[in-house]
């Protein structure tokens, strides 16, 4: 029998898909470099690398949730909660650093797990459950910190400092590793395969003899866990535990996921393309800032890019369907 070359069109097409996102990002860089002579510099990229790790992790978790046809509106609040738990453990309770880190991660994962568990067992749409958690987790972080920003005196600060010689911080490297790991899990493992299948048609998955509750709860726990790491990164960058950290971040994360071409209907998506979505949003903001655009202008343009990217994606899919339909007709003839 011939070697299965049929794997290659699949691999090739996904490479092509990353390539188009990469091309958009490079295009943005070229555009801003032409418009501003200060843009193309090590400092710009170093500051990008320092800014995006938290959003990258939150958006990566969001990608998994959206692939199962769910949504998680609470990730911004969970990020804030994790930072607050970390701050209060370290400063308020005087716990050692590793324990404070673990507590923050547990708090985030637990909040995510609760999201998933309630949504799955009580059959409440994840939109509503996580909308509730958005308030609950935010409220808890105010309670934990007494609504005060806590200064950490350099704890975890080294994570966000650029490594000498490369100019990028540890947080960025960790974020990249996690993105690659999640993409691998999504495309190569049984768990990932099931997430995509559940997002496509949960009924069919159940009738194929697969219990869907476990994976559906797990993605929310993972999203919570990743948001908690994001919270620690955020804390490390600011040097303080801010109960207001991550307000509105869920929307940036959803935007990154959508720009990356993940379907809000579930069943299709890529963590790597979400990462490119994050890069595009961050580059756009930093480029516009360097051009001297005001905050309101930045927001208008960013919003337009989100809608444009999503429309482009829909249009591309339609085109593909049309082309395939045409080929099919040719073959049948």
């Amino acid at each position, binding site marked *: 029998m011939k070697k299965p070359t049929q794997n290659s069109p699949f691999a090739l097409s996904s490479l092509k898909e990353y390539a188009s996102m990469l091309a958009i990002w490079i295009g943005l860089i070229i555009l801003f470099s032409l418009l501003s002579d200060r843009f193309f510099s090590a400092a710009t990229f170093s500051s990008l690398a320092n800014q995006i790790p938290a959003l990258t992790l939150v958006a990566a978790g969001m990608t998994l949730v959206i692939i199962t046809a769910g949504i998680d509106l609470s990730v911004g609040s969970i990020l804030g909660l994790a930072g607050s738990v970390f701050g209060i453990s370290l400063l308020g309770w005087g716990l050692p650093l590793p324990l404070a880190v673990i507590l923050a991660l547990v708090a985030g994962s637990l909040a995510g797990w609760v999201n998933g568990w309630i949504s799955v067992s009580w059959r409440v749409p994840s939109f509503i459950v996580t909308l509730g958690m958005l308030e609950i987790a935010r409220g808890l972080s105010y309670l934990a910190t007494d609504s005060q920003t806590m200064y950490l005196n350099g704890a975890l600060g080294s994570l966000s400092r650029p490594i000498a010689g490369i100019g990028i911080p540890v947080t960025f490297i960790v974020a990249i590793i996690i993105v690659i790991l999640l993409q691998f899990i999504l495309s190569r493992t049984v768990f990932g395969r099931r997430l995509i*299948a559940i997002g496509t048609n949960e009924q069919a998955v*159940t009738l194929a003899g697969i219990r869907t509750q476990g994976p559906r709860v797990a993605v929310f726990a993972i999203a919570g866990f990743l948001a908690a790491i994001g919270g620690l990164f955020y804390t490390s960058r600011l040097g303080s535990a801010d109960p207001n950290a991550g307000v509105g971040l869920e929307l940036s994360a959803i935007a990154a996921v959508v720009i990356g071409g993940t379907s809000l209907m579930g069943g299709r998506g890529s963590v790597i393309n979400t990462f490119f979505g994050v890069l595009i949003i961050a580059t756009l903001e930093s480029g516009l800032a360097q051009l001297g655009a005001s905050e309101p202008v930045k927001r208008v343009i960013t919003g337009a890019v989100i809608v444009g990217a999503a429309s482009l994606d829909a249009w591309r899919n339609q085109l593909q369907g049309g082309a395939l339909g045409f080929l099919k007709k040719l073959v049948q003839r």
Partner: protein
Amino acid sequence: MGSNGAGKSTLAKILCGLTPRNSGDIVFNNVPHSPVSKQDASSAGIVIVMQELNIIPTLSIAQNLYFHDLPTTRFGIIDRARLHSDAQEALARVKLGHLNPNLTAETLGVGQQQLLEIAAALTQDCKLLILDEPTAALTDPEIETLFEQIKQLTAQGVAILYVSHRMEEIRRISDRVTVMRDGRRISTYDTKDVDQKTLVREMAGKEIWSTSHTPSDLSEAPVTLEVRKLANPPLVQDLSLKLRKGEILGIAGLVGSGRTECLQTIFGATPADSGEILVNGSSVSIKHPSDAVRLGIGMIPEDRKSEGLLLSQSIRANATLASHDTFSSLGLIDQTKETLETQSACGGFSVKHDHSEQAVQELSGGNQQKIVLIRWILRDSEILLLDEPTRGVDVAAKESIYTSLRELAAKGKSILIVSSELLELMTLCDRILAFSGGQVVQEFTPDNWSQEAITEAAFKAYLEPTIDKAPNK
């Protein structure tokens, strides 16, 4: 008539303004007809009942019936009283008069929803009624009702364009028959002058013959699946049956007789309230489909698109969905193994496809159904529960599915198959059980089965309660 993909539905859609035409003219009642929308066509007097259900599940039956033209009061508010009485009348016409028009349409079964659509079409004043595969989801008595309606309409001078690939229906109700193939008209005959063989030959473009089947007497073979007094009210009551190794056992019954629910209960999709299921002689507990799959049971659900397939996913992902454990180690999927086995299974079942990464939504209905079947072959399930496996599948693909099922049975798989087409069961099965009221009312073997006898059995039990009630009145 014509097999799948012949262009029948497209023609119907063009006539109703649902699809634009590229060239050519339509003349309707000596007037050029070029509808741009469904409303346009219906105001010209052409009304369609489409193959796919078009009802709005969350609206009431009455609102669905008159959705095109809801009666309103002077202030633009829906006139509920008039709607209600009109709806009752429309429902009575298709013998659904016992239904409350205020129920939401989603509470109806598929067959009743289909009748509801036909009733909705009949509420419009039409000169040409197009029925596209109207009986696909209907049971025999429902079909009778439909045919009565058709006769009445034709008597009133309404022309009917009836699209179907069911030979016996065409022979019964049509005056003339046109065969389409590959988007062209092949021929038109007066129905009474043409024999079945000619029509089938022209539809297929090549000779199709039913592979002859000799049912086997398997009464000595070991029982692989036994069900004792299974109950899952309201549709499954006190159900007992035995399925033997290598046997194809048919279940015949009307829609609502509990035949689908029987399969779903055995499979754990709707776990049983009481009763016992035995697999290979030992009592088992099936609370979820995963329990059934672990015990070697596989099911092909009635609606392959909504319950069986991941339409946007590849053939490979669909084929291996039930056997992730055999295609992975330590949670990592072995894609090479997946591809190889999917390809060889697709070859074995002669699935028409380009490559195993193709999305299943690009395949035809028959080939899609084969992918669901392959899913359980790759899983190596010993017991297969099939619910209407050839629904919406053309003649050639049906034959191919029949051949596959017989081969599977010959290899020792046990197959339990539900079908509305008695001929299908009689060409395929070694035994047939007539189902009614959630239980087996009669068992048929090749010596004593006939379409009439099985239909009678399925009906008799159905009518008994009303006969009992009659004297009480």
